[in-house]
């Protein structure tokens, strides 16, 4: 194997700084996309369970279309396809403020919103319908019963699959490198481009992802135990 190892490239020169910047960008991108995804997910997931057909149909169309198309295609779509359609003023603002980051965030958030909505929908559907009927009987509107009764319980039930989806979101942020977002995987390629040390660069990136994912999974396992509702074990399936 014609390869000389030089692990020092990881902390000499630019590499350390690039890795840190990449990590921060990954976290920023994932956090913002996660907020968007959860918001869309709760909205769509809840709307898919209401009786009102047009809203249910709208939510179903959103979910079925966005989650069945690869994230990479969405990245290209939001970054290349959408900006030319926007008014010139917004376009200029975007291009001066990191359009690729916002396109990546939208692609990631909207895609995972569709996936998280399935998880939330399963959570809501695993709550007995009697809960909803009882709350309506007590005089709450549909919106109030969802907000005060159904959703709080559903959200606590779905911690494991929701954690799974959140970790998927974090890992999928790497796809943003195809539209030049300088996240962690992009930076490992950058280090490799400038130092030609592929194994060292890839190892650094891989280790960072592993540590991130395993820490989040461990924390969320603790959260799940803390917030578990005794007596209510829902078999909530994984979303596609």
């Amino acid at each position: 194997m014609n390869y000389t190892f030089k692990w020092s490239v990881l902390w000499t020169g630019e590499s350390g700084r690039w890795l840190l910047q990449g990590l921060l960008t990954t976290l920023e991108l994932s956090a913002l996309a996660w907020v968007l995804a959860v918001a869309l997910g709760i909205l769509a997931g809840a709307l898919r369970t209401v009786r009102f057909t047009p809203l249910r149909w709208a939510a179903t169309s959103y979910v079925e279309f966005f989650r069945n198309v690869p994230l990479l295609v969405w990245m290209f779509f939001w970054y290349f396809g959408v900006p030319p359609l926007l008014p010139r003023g917004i376009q200029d603002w975007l291009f001066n403020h990191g359009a690729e980051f916002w396109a990546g965030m939208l692609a990631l958030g909207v895609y995972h919103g569709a996936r998280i909505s399935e998880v939330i929908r399963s959570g809501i559907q695993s709550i007995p319908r009697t809960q909803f009927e009882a709350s309506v009987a007590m005089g709450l509107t549909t919106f109030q019963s969802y907000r005060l009764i159904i959703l709080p319980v559903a959200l606590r039930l779905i911690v494991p699959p929701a954690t799974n989806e959140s970790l998927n979101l974090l890992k999928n942020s790497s796809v943003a490198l195809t539209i030049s977002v300088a996240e962690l995987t992009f930076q490992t390629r950058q280090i490799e481009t400038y130092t030609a040390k592929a194994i060292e660069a890839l190892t650094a990136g891989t280790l960072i992802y592993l540590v991130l994912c395993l820490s989040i999974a461990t924390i969320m396992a603790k959260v799940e135990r803390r917030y578990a509702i005794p007596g209510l074990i829902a078999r909530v399936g994984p979303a596609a």
Partner: protein
Amino acid sequence: MEATFAVLLALALALSSAAPALAQPDTLEKIKSSGVLTIGTRTGSPPFAYINKNNEWVGFSIDLVEMLVKPSVEKAVGRSIKIEKKESTPPTRIPLLTNNSVDLIAGTMTDTPQRRESVDFSLTFFYTGAQFLVKKGSPIKGINDIAGKRIAAQQGATNAKILREKYPQAQLREFPDQPAAFQALVQGQVDAYTNDGIQLYGLKAKAPNPNDWEVVGDFYSEEPYGMAMRKGDTKFKAAVDAGLKNGFESGKYFEIYDKWFGPKGELPYPMTPQVKAYLLKQIGK
């Protein structure tokens, strides 16, 4: 978590202790037994290597390989061979070469002393310099106008490095390949795209509206193009160079040049006498 970490550590140690067998690469032997010469080349750099309107993979550099290098390599290994093409871009071409995915990079790679530390280059087959592609009427006229402007470049290209190191006042945006950078320019995400002049002319010629663009600026760097191969691969380099030398001497090179850059070519770009003299000087003429 600790278990996984231990596995990784063990893997890393195992990899580093695997005795690096420093056998000299012998590409000719490999080509002799497999019958295939794999080249790494571009898909979006007209007219050097690109995919045309009929979705065919063609170009000047590809022709140089097919018509000049291939016969010479066939002569060296004593059998007929096939050329296989793989896509390579500035950030990926050296890794693809060093990890044996391709045997020869034939695209738009500039021969620089720094790169010569990792790869060997063939004779220079083209000579150009870096310039800027801008929308017609742009205030940018050259390297001195780029302070504060957003400039696109390819990740890993010589011009990206120059801008990063010598012109930090410009806002450099790096893209994985030329089409991505050009689209950014089309959409107004960047104010200019910098690359070697000839490639900018090629892009402009093939753009949907060529008259919207202009190539500006004096050459702010010198870009001699060479074909890259693995370091120390002397026999293979000799074969490649022999093919190119033959092309210069017999005039076949100039025929191919005329096909792509002549008055009836894809991109008319007459060869200046200085460039011609430079190319011929390599082989002692």
